[in-house]
């Protein structure tokens, strides 16, 4: 048993800690606060404490637990809200009231609750790690698959059925090391990635229902994305939109060092929203980690691992999991804060030298995999990280190290946010490295050449940016008409396609078929407009076409309404341009246009 010799903020130094291990979980002080060993020199241990340390004194004891910081994995995760060390916040509230007190314990998974276990294997079956022993209907959406834990294989001697608690033995296996009891609940150290058979190339899009992502800068299932931006540019709203509408089976949402009211927002609004695929409450597929900015920083540091371990566990069942981490910068700052207390040699901007490797390790836990188990199961963890760069300037270490790793970059732009262009994702600086991966999906699903359309749209917006530079020097009047037609169409693309108001009851989600339909119409308008302008139609005339109004109204149509309207709009568009050209040839139209 060790003895505290120093306390400085969330860091405690203890002596007489011989026999302890790095990353071992310890109980600190008379109140037995939870801590983790993050440094060992001789028999002196450096401990990060997951709870407030005020009032703790040197001389108080420190006890080892012999275990690393771990999470409980089993039925009960869905719909739960945990702090960074997986303390269940609703249970904690029942125990100690509305304010979080320290030194309170509660198991992450409810111990008394009984689940209906339906076996999948029979007595006598040979099973290996990852095999599904049986299932539990955890929520209306989620079938929780109880798996043989990693590293275990053998013959099923006994298998249960019916009502069980998480700690109950649901199967007994005959293994090479003797009999082994398998319980519903697994325990897994958070800092160790869960094993799988093989990592695969992500080739399916994670559809988010957000046009700028799905159509322009798609993320693949099992991929990684970062969304950096200054305060108030829309990171949280965007991640929450993805959490709501993505076609994932499971959502793990990590609030790391952010606002209490945002977590409350999720808790209040998710249950009311319906998953577009199943029609059930969105909360029925979501697990939350909430370690807000005013909760202990060490737990913030741990929360990211807690979250990704839960995500991997569901992936292992064969699910597509999407994980949001808001914000990875606050997580990095937690590392900085703790490292600063250790008086470690700092790296750039005071961040610890291991910042880059920690970020890389975290994103590396994303991926589409062939899971353990003898049946062919595929699962994925898609990781989306918010980055909060100081002053919105991406030249800082967290942004830079993140951008070296992730494959999708959604660049938020303060200027766009100020003018309420939401999502404020800059279409010129953002990128996705999954374009080729997901191209095939679009082809087979919509029978459209999504990639060409998208490339053409981006080229048009690029052209707009160049023209804007000229306008800034000489004014809009000086541009030739065809170029003004580009500006007009690009504006349409921005306002009627890229802008997507999260709070609009219909436009909050846009199905992929509708996205491509909208894109086609706008690009059709663009081609026609430029062509018409080349043939001498003034842009002022094009601007007055009634079809523009229908295009502006596309967002407000449900997918079904849009599908019905689509042909009509296409026709309307063609006819109206034809009309302009015909009028141009007829002399009567000349006067009208010359104004």
């Amino acid at each position: 048993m060790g003895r505290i010799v120093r306390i400085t903020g969330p860091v405690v130094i203890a002596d007489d800690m011989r026999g302890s291990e790095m990353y071992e979980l310890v109980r600190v002080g008379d109140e037995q606060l939870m801590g983790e060993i993050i440094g060992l020199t001789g028999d002196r241990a450096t401990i990060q404490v997951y709870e407030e340390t005020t009032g703790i004194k040197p001389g108080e004891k420190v006890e080892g637990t012999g275990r690393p910081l771990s999470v409980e994995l089993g039925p009960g995760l869905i719909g739960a809200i945990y702090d960074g060390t997986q303390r269940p916040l609703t249970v904690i509230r029942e125990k100690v009231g509305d304010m979080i007190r320290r030194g309170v314990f509660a198991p992450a998974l409810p111990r008394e609750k009984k689940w209906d276990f339906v076996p999948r294997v029979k007595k006598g079956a040979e099973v290996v790690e990852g095999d599904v022993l049986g299932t539990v209907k955890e929520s209306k959406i989620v079938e929780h698959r109880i798996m043989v834990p990693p590293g275990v294989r053998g013959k099923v001697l006994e298998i249960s059925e019916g009502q069980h608690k998480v700690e109950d033995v649901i199967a007994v296996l005959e293994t090479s090391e003797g009999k082994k009891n398998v319980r519903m609940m697994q325990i897994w150290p958070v800092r160790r990635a869960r094993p799988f058979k093989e990592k695969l190339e992500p080739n399916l899009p994670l559809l988010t229902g957000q046009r700028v992502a799905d159509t322009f800068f798609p993320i693949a299932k099992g991929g990684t994305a970062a969304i950096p931006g200054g305060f108030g540019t829309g990171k949280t709203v965007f991640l929450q939109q993805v959490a709501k509408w993505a076609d994932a089976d499971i959502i793990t949402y990590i609030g790391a060092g952010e606002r209490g009211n945002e977590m409350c927002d999720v808790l209040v609004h998710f249950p009311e929203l319906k998953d577009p695929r199943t029609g059930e409450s969105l909360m029925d597929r979501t697990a939350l980690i909430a370690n807000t900015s005013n909760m202990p920083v060490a737990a913030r540091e741990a929360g990211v691992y807690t979250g990704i371990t839960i995500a991997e566990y569901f992936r292992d069942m064969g699910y597509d999991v999407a994980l949001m981490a808001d914000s990875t910068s606050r997580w990095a700052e937690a590392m900085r804060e703790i490292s600063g207390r250790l008086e470690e040699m700092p790296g750039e901007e005071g961040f610890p030298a291991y910042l880059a490797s920690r970020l890389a390790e975290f994103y590396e836990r994303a991926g589409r995999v062939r899971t353990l188990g003898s049946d062919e199961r595929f699962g994925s963890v898609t990781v989306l990280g918010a980055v909060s760069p100081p002053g919105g300037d991406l030249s800082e270490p967290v942004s830079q190290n993140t951008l070296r790793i992730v494959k999708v970059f959604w660049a938020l732009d303060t200027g766009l946010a100020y003018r309420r262009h939401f999502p404020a994702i800059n279409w010129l600086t953002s990128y996705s490295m999954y374009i080729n991966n997901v191209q095939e999906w679009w082809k087979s699903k919509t029978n459209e050449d999504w990639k060409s359309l998208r490339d053409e749209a981006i080229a048009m917006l690029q052209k707009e940016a160049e023209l804007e530079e000229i306008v800034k020097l000489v004014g809009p009047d000086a541009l030739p008409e065809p170029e003004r037609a580009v500006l007009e169409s690009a504006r349409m693309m921005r306002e009627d396609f890229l802008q997507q108001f999260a709070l609009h009851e219909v436009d909050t989600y846009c199905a992929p078929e509708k996205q491509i339909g909208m894109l086609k119409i706008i690009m059709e308008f663009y081609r026609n407009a430029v062509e018409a302008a080349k043939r001498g139609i003034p842009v002022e005339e094009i601007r007055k076409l009634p079809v523009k109004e229908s295009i502006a109204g596309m967002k407000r149509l449900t997918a079904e309404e849009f599908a019905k309207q689509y042909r009509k709009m296409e026709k309307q568009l063609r006819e109206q341009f034809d009309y302009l050209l015909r009028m141009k040839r007829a002399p009567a139209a000349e006067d009208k246009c010359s104004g």
Partner: protein
Amino acid sequence: MKSREYLTVAEVYGPLMIVEGVSGVAYGEVVDITTPDGEVKHGQVLDAYEDRAVIQVYEGTRGIDTFKTKVRFRGETVKFGVGLEVLGRIFSGRGEPIDGGPKPIFEDEWDVHGAPINPSAREYPSEFIQTGISVIDGMNTLVRGQKLPIFSGAGLPHNELVAQIARQAKVLGEEEKFAVVFCGMGITHEEAAFFINGFEKSGAIERATVFLNLANDPAIERILTPRLALTTAEYLAFTQGMHVLVILTDMTNYCEALREISAARSEVPGRRGYPGYMYTDLASIYERAGRIKGRKGSVTQMPVLTMPADDITHPIPDLTGYITEGQLVMERELHRKGIYPPINPLPSLSRLMKDGIGEGHTREDHMDVSNQLYAAYAEGRDIRSLVAVVGEEALTERDRSYLAFADRFEREFVNQGRDEDRPIETTLDLGWELLRSLPESELKRVDPKFIAKYLRPK
């Protein structure tokens, strides 16, 4: 914990001192320090070793020596009395009454650091507070339990604005218990007097508690002052069921004190010399706003900060913006034009307005009007800077209408009297009035059904 006394000050530097030969000192413990001239100061343990403690001294270390200074460890963490008697009273930045009245009788003593509200215990804020100021109510709506700071600059009228909000703020159709907790950090006598006189004139002083750390008071004390104020606010809100508006001014001075301590400890600095933990420290203040399920009261925070060199990317506004639920940004250019309040709505934001406006809260068209005003004003300002280069002749008709809109918007919508209290309907109607000057096809942010109803009402 028992109290113990030592004469073993080993070192004094900046706002810190080190006491040696101690034992059983708790992290965060309070100490009383008696200097050789008999002056009593107060401090708190920042780093606790077995036989040594690093202490931050709230009143500054002047007069402390290494021979005769007595240090008494009080055996407890920093606490402050709570009770209804604090209403109508003025305290120093350390919590001593300075209004000449007796020491209030407290009902209890609370740890000034508070405890984090369990996120699952929070009630999502959704009650509209009408401030009577169009640019706030219409476009950056404040709700009960929100933390909405004012980003200002030296010489801008943030004090007038805050005083006006404190005077006019109300929740429509309700007579509920409210209170104001005012926390001045490093402000001048004049500023303090301006607020106190204002509270006295409006009668609000009866329902106000004032904490004052003035510019010539010890800087380190400012670390404590907002925590006293928030402890008081939490008591009034969550124990007494009051709706409490907390004004914290000026957070820039608070952050300077934080930097001073960090520098004295030779900590590795973060950006521009501010400590790496400033985000977490500020969060421990700002996150003490909110509502709690099943409890009546609320804590609404309105922090004020002056942006050094009007720079919004400076760490103080930057980290604040990353924690608070929006910000109201004052702009020198608008101020020079004589617009009051000189709030530029574009960089301003209220993240919580979404649940506090619309049907049943304000009016059904509120969100759309607000969005359209934003978009139009942004466009107007872009065109204004374009005109500066290419001249007005080069503009199209559409551009001209935006240019005119932006001017009117500033003069008629943003600008208002220092005593003018506009009801929300007036604000929204005014918004429509301005939008009417734009071509209807430009109003894409508004649902067509509202165009019919509000833009061209019969």
